[in-house]
């Protein structure tokens, strides 16, 4: 080939025109493919940089659970990979390149005709003549025929890079958190708890075919992962927890309203769990037997004995008796229909139970993050109001009675009743006046002195932790008491001061300053 960038060569000065034609066309093809790649890579770089800008902004503004810079790098890499893929798809073959080169060089189709004949009729005299004719003209070097060019988009890439630098350096708004802000360990810890509970819940929902619970479990896991990643501040996490709390409650109420009669709305699931009829798969087996007409006398007797539980679900005992009588007379449909209704109710109650459990986990997380509203079962605006320090103090001092049954779902009665409901003995926590104790984090303000003649005034106030602060961080507790503390707090909604009491108890246990040794010894 030629020795200089603008050197030309005489094709006829060398033998084997056909071979040289092939070499020349292949060189041209490589040059053209490289040209296409560089053109598209410029565009890919530009759009990749733009995508990186967008990803940084989106991650920060919407608090997406991704680390900022790896996401930006991935967006940039995606742009370049897309450009490379496009270049691969658009790669021309040798004939296309020879046609284009003919036009670029002005060879009057000598090159493309010769190459087409070389491909179709290799080794013929005519092909050799055409090849010699094509190379008889002085042809420029391939990189002159197809020089590397930067597309318009590629020329704009520096601007996109500048934009990326600005986006990275300039804080676009007050909602953007400091990229170097440390991860809140409490938020992350609660995130882990939420995510793990979500996973268990999803497994159970999948096992028992409970679609709404599966969806709720996914939401729980997403929020948990986001909190765990450290991309959320405590306030942001609390805000999302409140939203999720409200959503779970709404979902649970919707499940019950759709499947249970109003009379059965307050029926505790423990009731059903205690009945043989509602034990694992029993209802389904019975239904199958009824449809096949193979119900045994034992099954009929068991159904007759379950009339109390069935009537608790809003189905009159007479209706059951009639269905059994009609079954005995050979008509199976009424009993099958009744069992199907019971099966649907059972599913709804199990789904509501799962959602209720999730609510409790969310509220526990809210509380652990310092949300006083969680104790009152206020997932929405009331909880927000309670986040304000003075509001919390006012609520506490006013000794607002906690109405656990107000928003605690249909199982509240069962939860309160020993030996029923969830089947766990709820610890009895005595009502303690908030003035009688002072937690270590509460601040006492005292004004002493003699403002004038008369009595000496002494004013004392207590300030509850603001939202985002907890009086006793979970990190202070010994890990062996974490589970027990959560089990106690999850069983029932307590007023804030009682929860503080429980926490302090476990804190003392952790510090070895309490005489008690287990949760059962809690006050």
């Amino acid at each position, binding site marked *: 080939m030629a020795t200089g960038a603008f050197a030309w060569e005489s094709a006829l000065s060398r033998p084997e025109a056909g071979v040289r034609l092939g070499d020349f066309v292949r060189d041209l093809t490589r040059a053209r493919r490289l040209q296409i790649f560089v053109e598209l890579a410029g565009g890919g770089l530009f759009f990749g940089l733009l995508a990186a800008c967008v990803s940084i902004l989106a991650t920060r503004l919407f608090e997406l659970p991704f680390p900022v810079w790896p996401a930006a790098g991935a967006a940039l890499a995606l742009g370049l990979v897309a450009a490379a893929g496009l270049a691969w798809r658009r790669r021309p073959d040798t004939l296309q390149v020879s*046609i284009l080169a003919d*036009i670029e060089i002005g060879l009057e189709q000598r090159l*493309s*005709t*010769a190459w*087409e004949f070389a491909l179709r009729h290799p080794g013929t*005299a005519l092909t050799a*003549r055409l090849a010699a004719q094509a190379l008889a003209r002085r042809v420029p070097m391939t990189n002159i025929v197809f020089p590397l060019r930067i597309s318009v988009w590629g020329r704009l890439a520096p601007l996109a890079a500048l934009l990326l630098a600005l986006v990275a350096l300039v804080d676009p708004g007050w909602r953007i958190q400091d990229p170097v802000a440390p991860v809140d360990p409490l938020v992350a810890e609660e995130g882990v708890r939420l995510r793990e509970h979500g996973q268990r819940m999803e497994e159970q929902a999948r096992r028992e075919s409970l679609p709404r619970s599966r969806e709720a479990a996914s939401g729980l896991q997403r929020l948990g992962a986001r909190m765990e990643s450290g991309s959320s501040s405590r306030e942001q996490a609390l805000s999302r927890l409140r939203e999720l709390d409200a959503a779970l409650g709404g979902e649970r109420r919707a499940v019950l309203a759709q499947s249970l009669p109003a009379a059965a709305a307050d029926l505790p699931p423990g009731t059903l769990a205690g009945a043989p009829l509602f034990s694992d798969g029993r209802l389904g087996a019975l239904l199958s037997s009824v449809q096949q007409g193979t119900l045994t006398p034992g099954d009929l007797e068991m159904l007759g004995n379950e009339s109390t539980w069935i009537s608790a679900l809003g189905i009159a005992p007479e209706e059951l008796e009639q269905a059994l009588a009609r079954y005995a007379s050979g008509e199976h449909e009424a009993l099958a229909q009744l069992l199907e209704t019971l099966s649907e109710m059972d599913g709804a109650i199990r789904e509501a139970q799962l959602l209720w459990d999730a609510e409790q986990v969310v509220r526990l997380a809210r509380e652990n993050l310092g949300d006083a509203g969680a104790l009152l079962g206020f997932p929405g605006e009331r909880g927000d109001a309670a986040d304000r320090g003075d509001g919390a103090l006012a609520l506490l001092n006013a000794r607002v009675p906690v109405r656990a049954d107000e928003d605690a779902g249909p199982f509240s009665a069962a939860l309160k009743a020993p030996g029923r409901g969830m089947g766990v003995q709820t610890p009895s926590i005595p009502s303690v006046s908030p003035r009688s104790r002072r937690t270590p984090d509460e601040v006492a303000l005292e004004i002493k002195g003699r403002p004038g003649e008369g009595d000496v005034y002494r004013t004392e106030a207590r300030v509850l932790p603001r939202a985002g602060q907890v009086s006793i961080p979970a990190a202070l507790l010994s890990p062996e008491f974490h589970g027990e503390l959560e089990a106690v707090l999850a069983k029932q909604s307590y007023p804030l001061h009682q929860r503080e009491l429980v926490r302090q108890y476990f804190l003392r246990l952790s510090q070895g300053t309490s005489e008690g040794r287990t949760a059962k010894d809690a006050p």
Partner: protein
Amino acid sequence: MNAAGHEESMDQALERLDALQREIDRRIVGHRAVIEGILAGLLAGGHVLLEGVPGLGKTLLVKSLSDALQLEFARIQFTPDLMPADIIGTQMVMLDEGGGRHFSFQPGPVFTQLLLADEINRATPKTQSALLEAMEEKKVTVGRTGHSLQEPFMVLATQNPIEMEGTYPLPEAQLDRFLLKLTASFPEAEDLSRIVDRTTGSALPEVRPVMSGPELEELRALVRQVVIAEHVKGYAIRLVLSTHPDHPSATPLARRYVRHGASPRGVQSLVLTAKAFALFAGRLNVSFEDIEAAAAPALRHRVLLNFEGEAEGIGAEDLVGELLRETPVVEGGARA
């Protein structure tokens, strides 16, 4: 033919064509495109319709060509009372030596090698059509007997575009038989001066015969050996298809003003003429430029305008010009 032979033939062909062109140039001034078109038609084995106002030297050009070629030449002056038999010949009653009478075919002027059909649009369509068989099949049928014409055979017809009175436009079928339609334009001042010098002197310059019939046949065979690549052929086909108003690739002018696009003969003419042009350039292959140079002469008389097109005075040149502007040389790509 091997590569060396191919190269030698090409060199000889170029020499002969140069010589032929030089001889014609001795008598004809200017008209480069027309002369090249006639030579292309001659080498492609087609017939050429030459259109131009009177006095441009059309007849002289054809006469000069016949002088330069060692071919039989005949001229028919077409008039309204010309009959087909005046062209192709007729059966005549003849007396033999024994006094007996018999019919004998007396060939008409079409039995030649280079036929000048002067002012062809003055004859009636019936008479014009007498040339159809001769032009297409190179033979004439009289009664039940066919008479072959001598090869090479070429019709060079002239027509005057401005005299409408007493003329009969050539029917579409007749037009399609012409490989090319060339238009002679008015010469420039410099050419006019040279024409005056040459034609007002004591004698016209002599034209010597430089090419025989067999040599012309060799050149014709060589033209057909010029190769055309698939993508160049595709360009020619797309050009012809774009003249059809109903085709998706039709140009805007074609959609609006064309009644019928070019026939398949149009593609044949386009490619054959382009091959001849490639040979003139000493090239073994047809280029896009050859196709573009051949487009106007090969297609202009094959694109039939509708009433609107004729009423608005749209010229075939306009259509072909737009065709060349709008059609990309490479399918899906831009123009070169």
